[in-house]
Each structure stands twice: as structure tokens, then as C-alpha cells.
């Protein structure tokens, strides 16, 4: 555990350094090749598959740093697809992992809003798929089947969706009679169900981390603004009403961060598919996303006019926070899931 922590801290420090160097909302064209080059996609890959073996802890830690810098990279989508490969039993697994962590990009949807159905063929629409235009394959989960589908083949159409959050480039991917036999099936039946559960937990923890990192970064920017900007002959940071709001923001952020860390400390990578882990991930995601939305809204108000200008990064945080709330299965569903699980346990 303490060896793991040491690795994590090293990775964190190096990630922070890279992200600081790239600046807020670094562009995909620059940052994505760097991400690949730095081997970040290998973070959760086990050592026997030439990865770092840092699991969900490593991935979450990286997401905190990427969130902090509002990185415009489809890192989460690629991580999910690679993790599915790692969990699979297919023969070409090592080769595919190597390909997707060092060369070709692979992507996966970030929200549970797919209409894809599966018989012998795939049909329907997969939404909220990041950077699908530059990826070669996409991960598709349907009921009890997980499959890797080539994006450049007949029957697959991409359609870019404009989003308020410009730090992600999202696509709809439509399948028309895409023959399953020609794709790479990663899991079926119970194994697929467990894999999907695992991917959801991984995704929710990563989104929680994204929110925690981004909110912390935004609070830093906000405090900096308040310390610098003067009104009525004194820095804004001197006004108690504003100080108190910053204190509330800080407390919200730290509580969400503590919950994420605490949740991760309670599970091992192998337990990610279990119902308890799923709930821990949902709670972490719910708390972090609500917190990030609250913090972004306050930050915009505290920035005043300058925050309303697109040249200032303030709005990029707000827009990311708004989208994050709806990723996964959406905050409202998480609330219900948590309550219903709790009530079921009591019954």
C-alpha cells in the first residue's frame, strides 16, 4: 500500500508539472499525443501487460490533475476501453492493449443513453462518445455483451454534436446492421455484466476525480482574482461576504475529495464490479458533481464581468461542471439509486 502510494505521489507530481506547463484547457491536438507519449494510458494496466499496475487509484489521481487543468483529451473514454480489454479473455488482448495505449485511439461513451440493440447485428445510436473522429474503435456495451467496434467500416456513421462544454468533442455514433461476427467481442453473459459494472464504477470514480480537480483549480483562480482585483480602493478578498463564500466552497471541495479518497481506500481494483463498490462510486460521483456545479456557479458570480468574457477560463469550468452532472447515468438517477439501495438494505 505504501509502495503504491509512493508511485501515486510521483505520478501526481509529474502530472501536475505537465499540466501546469500546458496551461488551462490545453488543446487536444497538443495534449493528447503527450498523454500517450507519457504512457498515462498504461496507468491502470497490470504490470504483466506492461502497464503501471496503479489501478483505479492511479486513474483517479490522473483524472484529478487532468480535471484541474480542464484537459481537452478523451482520456477517460480511452481508459475505459483499455480496461475492458484488460478484463477480457481474448487472444489478441496484449496486442490490442499495446496498440491502443501507444498508437491508435480507442473511445467509449461517457453516458448511459445508448439506444443500440444487438442481435446478429448492431443497430442504433451510441451518444456522448468523445473524439470519435480521431479514434479507430469504440467500446459498445449492450445488455450482456461488450464489444469493440471499428469506427471506419460500412454501417457506422459519426455525427459531431455541438456542446456548451468545449473541452470535449462529443459524437453520436450510429450503427446500421453492423455484423457482430466481424467485431471483437470482449465479453458475453455474466462476464459482460460484471465488466459493465466495473466500467461504470471506474467511470464514476474518474468523473468524481475530474470534478474534484477542476473545482480545486477553479477555486485557486477565483482566490487569485479576489486577491488581485480592487474595488472601492481595496482588494475584493477583503470583503467578508466574499471570504465566507470562498470558505464554503473550500469546505465543499475538501469534503468531496475526502469522500473520493475514502471510497477508493475501501476497495481493491478486483472489487470494482461489486455492488458496494458501485455505490461508493455513485456517491463519490454525485457529491463531487454537485459540488463542482455549486463551486462553478459561485466562481462565475465572484469573478464578475470578466467571468462573462469568453477569453477568461471561468466559463469553461462552469460548462464542464454542467455536462459532468449528466454524465454516467445523471445525478438524479444516482440519488435514487443510493436511496433505493439504502432502503432495500433496511427492508
Amino acid at each position: 500500500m505504501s509502495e503504491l502510494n509512493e508511485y501515486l505521489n510521483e505520478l501526481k507530481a509529474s502530472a501536475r508539472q505537465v499540466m501546469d506547463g500546458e496551461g488551462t484547457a490545453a488543446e487536444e491536438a497538443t495534449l493528447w499525443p503527450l498523454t500517450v507519449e507519457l504512457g498515462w494510458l498504461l496507468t491502470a494496466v497490470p504490470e504483466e501487460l506492461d502497464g503501471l499496475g496503479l489501478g483505479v487509484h492511479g486513474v483517479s489521481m490522473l483524472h484529478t490533475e487532468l480535471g484541474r487543468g480542464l484537459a481537452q483529451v478523451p482520456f477517460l473514454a480511452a481508459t475505459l476501453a483499455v480496461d475492458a480489454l484488460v478484463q477480457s479473455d481474448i487472444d489478441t488482448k496484449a496486442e490490442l492493449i499495446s496498440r491502443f495505449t501507444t498508437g491508435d485511439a480507442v473511445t467509449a461513451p461517457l453516458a448511459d443513453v445508448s439506444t443500440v440493440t444487438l442481435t446478429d447485428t448492431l443497430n442504433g445510436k451510441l451518444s456522448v462518445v468523445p473524439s470519435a473522429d480521431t479514434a479507430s474503435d469504440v467500446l459498445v456495451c449492450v445488455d450482456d455483451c461488450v464489444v469493440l467496434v471499428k469506427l471506419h467500416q460500412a454501417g457506422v456513421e459519426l455525427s459531431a454534436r455541438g456542446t456548451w462544454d468545449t473541452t470535449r468533442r462529443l459524437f453520436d455514433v450510429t450503427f446500421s446492421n453492423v455484423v457482430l461476427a466481424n467485431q471483437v467481442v470482449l465479453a458475453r453473459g455474466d462476464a459482460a455484466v460484471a465488466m459493465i459494472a466495473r466500467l461504470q464504477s471506474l467511470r464514476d470514480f474518474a468523473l468524481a476525480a475530474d470534478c474534484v480537480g477542476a473545482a480545486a483549480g477553479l477555486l485557486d483562480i477565483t482566490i487569485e482574482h479576489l486577491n488581485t482585483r480592487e474595488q472601492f480602493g481595496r482588494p475584493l478578498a477583503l470583503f467578508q461576504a466574499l471570504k465566507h463564500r470562498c470558505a464554503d466552497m473550500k469546505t465543499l471541495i475538501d469534503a468531496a475529495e475526502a469522500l473520493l479518497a475514502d471510497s477508493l481506500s475501501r476497495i481493491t481494483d478486483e472489487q470494482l464490479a461489486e455492488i458496494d463498490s458501485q455505490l461508493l462510486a455513485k456517491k463519490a460521483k454525485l457529491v463531487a458533481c454537485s459540488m463542482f456545479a455549486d463551486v462553478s456557479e459561485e466562481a462565475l458570480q465572484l469573478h464578475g464581468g470578466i467571468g462573462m468574457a469568453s477569453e477568461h477560463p471561468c466559463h469553461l469550468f462552469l460548462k464542464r461542471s454542467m455536462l459532468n452532472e449528466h454524465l454516467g447515468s445523471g445525478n438524479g438517477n444516482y440519488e435514487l439509486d443510493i436511496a433505493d439501495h439504502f432502503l432495500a438494505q433496511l427492508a
Partner: protein
Amino acid sequence: MMSESDTQTLRQEVRTWLQDNVPSGWRDAMTGVDQESFVQLQREWFGKLSKAGYATPHWPEGWPGGGRSLAEQKVIYEEVARADAPRLIMYFVALYHAACTLMECGTEAQKEKYLPGILNGEIWCQGFSEPNAGSDLASLKTRAERRGDKYIINGQKTWSTMAQYADRCLLLARTDSSGPPQAGQTYLLLDMKSPGVTVVPINQITGDDEFAEIFFDNVEVPVEDLVGEEGQGWAVAQATLASERGLTLVELSQRMRYALPMLAETLKERGLLEDTALRRDLGKVIARVDACCALADQYLLKRISGEEKVGDASMVKLCYAQTLREYTKLGRRISGLQGQFDPDFMRGATQETGNWTLDFMNSYNWSIAGGSNEIQRNIISERVLGMPREPKTWKL
């Protein structure tokens, strides 16, 4: 005060006119279009309104459309909101701030020179706000140096509505830095075509660019375009800053009310009409909007009867900004993931576009500009509640 039946007659008259004249489908036509189309819409709409006499109800008797009481103006504003007509944002400074300033503080020559132009559709912008000044208007730094019969202007203004299309500018500039911040400011009328004026639109977080920065590089303003006395600009500005106050808030609150069906529409589109939680939230927002409208109406009635007190306007503005936030946030929640797509903004619709993510972000215009919520809270606590003022100086 006008009688109930007079009000009803005017209301009916305006309502009928609006039914016949509001450009149909203007909201769709303004979505995702370039600014030229919007400017065109504004010009045409101003032409119609002006011709019908509804653009200048606050002007004195004798001017076309003028001589209306505040109560009549209220009726017109309410009906414009109800009819969901475009707001005349491009002409607002001209019709209110510029016209009122000229009428109250302008010389006869200035009135003759400028008022007819305003009536004919000249566009004015406001040169008050400065970068890093925010709600602290007294701290402005743009300089006006007297040289012979001219003032030479250097500096920068910001958040000026539609300045890129303005013919003239109401400018506050500093002629003297020796006294307290409010002193030494001078009020000038500036021709935007003067050499040395550069306008740079501000790209907003919504994608819109209805505001601009104005840079002044040795711009010359003839002394005959000085309003009031040199150094008395602060008083001139204060006298007219609030000329439309109350009316705007009545209109904006009413617009919120008349846009409530859009919230219901979103609820329906997303198949959430059976969601008890959201329906309750809708009920809450409806009641809150009504309360905001009532507060705005009450404020205007106080103005009409001369009972307005310092701070009353601040409460209306704060209430509006907070209600609008809550309102658009509910829309955002109802919209769900879908609301995060399609970032097409709609020009000139204020906030009720039905694209709730856009409307939510636009709601910050009202909690930040024109005196932020924080400034309003200062005013309310100090002027209405009589709590001690923020200290003038302090030692850490």
C-alpha cells in the same frame, strides 16, 4: 393617476397593435444568426415602434409618442413583454439615457442637434464602465484633457452594449484626479466616427457579442459637447442612470412570467410531466416569479406616487436576479443531458429562449451588471436596514 378604464383602453390598443406588428417567428430567425441579422431586426422593429408612437412614451408632451404617464408607460412595457416582442436593446441608451440626459442637463443647442437624430434611429452607447472598475463607477481612469476648445480623450471603456454599431457615445471621463473619486469626472457626447476610436466586440461565454470595448487614442471632443459643468459628470450621470429604472424591471419580470410555458414545454418534451419533484419545483418557481412581478409593480407604483425610497430599486433588482437564476436553473435541470448540446445562442432575447443552459448563463448578466447582487446587498443593508456602512478606511 390614470383611471382604470383609460388604462384598459390603452392596453387594448397596444395589445392589438402588437398582435399585428410583432415580427412573427423572430425568435427562430434570431437563433444562431450573425449580428447583422440582429441589427437589421432591431432597426426594423424600432422603425415600427417609433412610427406607432410606442418607442418614446417617456418623452415629454410635444414629441411624437411622448407625454405618457409612468402608469401608461407601464402598460406599454407589460404588453410588449406579454407579446414576446423583441427588446429594443440597441436603442435603449439612445431613447433613455441619452434623451433624458439631454432633456434634463443639455443645452438648447445640444437638444436641437441630437434629439431628432435619436428619434430617427441614431444609436448611442454608454461609455461608463471600465476594465477593473466593476461596480465601482467612481474609480474610472479614462482621461479628458482640455486643449483650447476641445477635450482630448485617452483610455478605455468596456461592457458597452452594441458599441460596434453606435453612432454616438455618452462618455464619462476624468478631467481632474486631485479630489475624491466622484469629483473631477466630466460628461461628454462623443461621435463614434471620430478618429482614434476603436471598438472591439467582447466575445461572451454564451457565444454572443452584444457588448464591446472602446479604446480612445487622442480622440477629440468639441467643448460644445460637454454636458453640464466640467467636473460635474458624476451628478449628470446619476441623474439619468435610473431614468428607465422600474420600467425595465417590470418588463423583465413580466417576460419571465410569460415565458413560464416554455418551462412546461421542456417538461413535456422530456416526458417528465409525471415527475412530482419537478412539478413541485415548477409550482415554486411560478409563485416566486409572481412575487418578483409584484415587487417590481409595487416599486413602479411607488415611483409614480413619489413614495420611492433609497434602496427600493436594489431590492427589485436583487429579487429579479435571484428569481431568474432559480428559474433558469430549473429549466437547466429539466433539460437534462439534452440541454448540454446545441449551443446555438439566440440574439436579443434577453434570457427566455427556452435553451435553458444559455438562459442560465445569461442570468448572470443580471446578477453582475448594473450593480452586482453584492452591491445591491450592501445598499439594502445600509440604506434600507440602516446597518453601518462599509468602513472608509481600515488597518490590517
